[in-house]
């Protein structure tokens, strides 16, 4: 196991409010896999990534039964040690890459500063040339043809897709074991989106770099990820291999989620309604107790006011009192 998180709870603490934005969520990743983390807006996907990389502000409190990174519990380590491990092994890319690059520095400058000093072998006066070589290599690796031009450009002169590639180049400079991609293709054109996702897949295969793909785009997860975890309002709903989940979802939410994607094969009548879940996601101030899907769930019963335990069955982990597709 590369990453094994059990019962992670992230609490938002303000003067008059204390909310568990993430409530007892679990997630585990195998080494070298692409893991999709899916959920609606505000379900705590990005929060998870930031809790993992310890970049949350003081307003948030992170607790977990365990947060194992290659067998080491991150939460037991001192912040410095934890920071070292995270910097060494985990890299992150974000949505809106154009805004994640310093607008006043050239791409080359920004890439040069992430090249680890220890990797430079040449003497002091050749350092600059060596770093330039390394940076162009990185740019070539992420599929930028005109790396020379890109090196000298300012971020605002590049397209969003190119910026994301630069961010990826920056992320892989330290050869991380895990790349956390936080909605990397949000608000991108579909061709650019596919380019970026393919690039991630290629890097995953060629460098054995695991990818945690955080997105609300179900299509891309089903296409590129090996495993996936579904979040609803900060609770993990179900996780397992993508193929299993597609075939036999155990949790009602999973099934509804997949059904919302209109497929070509289905014979939809003209002007008929598409499948949706009634209601809307609850705001953070008004989270229902127990299973947070409760008020909207078609199968909900009295018992659902108690948070269901997660059950492991046939490689799935799910948490529901009344699972579907399961003969009792």
């Amino acid at each position, binding site marked *: 196991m590369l990453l094994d998180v059990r019962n992670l709870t992230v609490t938002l603490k303000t003067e008059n409010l204390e909310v568990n934005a993430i409530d007892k969520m679990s997630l585990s990743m195998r080494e070298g896999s692409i893991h999709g983390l899916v959920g609606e807006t505000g379900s705590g996907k990005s929060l998870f990534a930031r809790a993992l*990389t310890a*970049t949350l502000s003081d307003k948030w409190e992170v607790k977990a039964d365990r947060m194992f990174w290659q067998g080491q519990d991150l939460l037991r380590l001192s912040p410095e040690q934890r920071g070292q491990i*995270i*910097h*060494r092994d985990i*890299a*992150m890319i*974000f949505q*809106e890459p154009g*805004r*994640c*690059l*310093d*607008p*006043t*520095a050239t791409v080359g400058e920004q890439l040069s*500063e*992430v090249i680890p000093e220890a990797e430079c072998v040449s003497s002091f006066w050749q350092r600059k040339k060596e770093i330039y070589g390394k940076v162009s290599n990185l740019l070539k690796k992420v599929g930028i043809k005109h790396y020379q031009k890109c090196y000298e450009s*300012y971020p*605002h*002169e590049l397209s969003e897709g190119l910026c994301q590639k630069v*961010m990826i180049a*920056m*992320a892989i400079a*330290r050869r991380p074991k895990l790349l956390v991609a936080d909605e990397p293709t949000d608000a991108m054109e579909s061709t650019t989106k596919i380019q970026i996702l393919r690039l991630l897949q290629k890097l995953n295969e060629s460098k054995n770099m695991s990818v945690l793909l955080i997105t609300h785009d179900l299509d891309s997860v089903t296409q590129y990820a090996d495993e996936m975890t579904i979040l609803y309002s900060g609770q993990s709903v179900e996780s397992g291999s993508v193929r299993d989940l597609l075939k036999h979802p155990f949790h009602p939410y999973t099934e509804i989620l997949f059904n919302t994607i209109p497929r070509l094969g289905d014979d939809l009548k003209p002007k008929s309604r598409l499948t949706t879940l009634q209601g809307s996601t609850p705001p953070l101030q008004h989270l229902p107790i127990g299973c947070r899907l409760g008020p909207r769930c078609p199968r909900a019963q009295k018992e659902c006011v108690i948070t269901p335990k997660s059950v492991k069955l046939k490689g799935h982990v799910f948490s529901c009192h009344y699972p579907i597709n399961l003969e009792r």
Partner: protein
Amino acid sequence: MIVYFIRRFNLLVTTLFLLSLISFSLAHLFPGDAAINFSGQQSLTYQEYAKLTEELALNESYFVQYIVYMQRVVQGDFGNSFSSDASVLDDFMRVFPASAELSAYALILTAIVGLPLGLWAGVKRNSWIDKVIFSSATIANSIPIFWMGLLLMLLFSLNLAWLPISGRLNLLYEVPSDTGILLIDIALSNLDNKYQIYQDALRHLVLPTITLAILPTTILIGMMRSSVINVMATPYIKAAKTKGLSTFQIIRKHVFRNAILPIIPQFGLLFNTLMTSTMITEFIFSWPGIGHWLIEAIYQRDYPVIQAALLLVSSFMVVINVLSDIVHTLLNPLVRKEING
């Protein structure tokens, strides 16, 4: 880019033109005779007056008068001072270095104190250090500068008697004025007790410089702090944190540059404050600079001097404003992008 420079230049010229127009109309608006206000020559015989009126084209239309006025301004002829009867330009050149020297030291002090404190407060936002820095800046910002000068004088000159009250130099010393900038003049002079003179000059400098620097410093701290806070909240700083750069590296490489860029165009505002403060500081400490000169001129109803001072000082301000704008454009790639389309 060239279009941008032409437009800036255009703005500069138009602004200067309007300023000259204001200055020109002042001679007519001020009480007294326009010919006397323009030339500064008071005791005239009738023939001389007629000749002057002819020279200044005062019987012609305002347009012609303005042209004549501008010709004189370009030649550096601002008339004579009522009180000293010397050429206004000569007087100006005599007092300008003293003001420039004082302002320059105050500006250096402002930058040395204001930038790091603002940066520190902004980076450590909401910590106690931020609160201390920011509230002291707010408090200092509310002290009227003339009172501040009085208080410093009361404390350090009168009660403690550490520092001299007024002037640039003890009257015992006489330093020939070559450049007008005292510290350089002392170095150039061939007096034997240079060390003592330096000490005396510096002691005279302390209070005015501090008084002058306080207000711009507090403004700079405020500007820098809010700018740093804005930068710290941007996605690229958050991204930089996950890249494994140390806090110091992030501040040095990303925060400082991005925070200081939006401040550059506000430099004009800072300079404006400095200029206003200079006038009052010079008045309090009897510093023989422009402010002192100008206020004396108003007491004496020395209209040619007022007129010239307004034109010269505000032209200087306009040039500073345009320059800071251009520097900002040259340094900030984002603005360059907007201009180049």
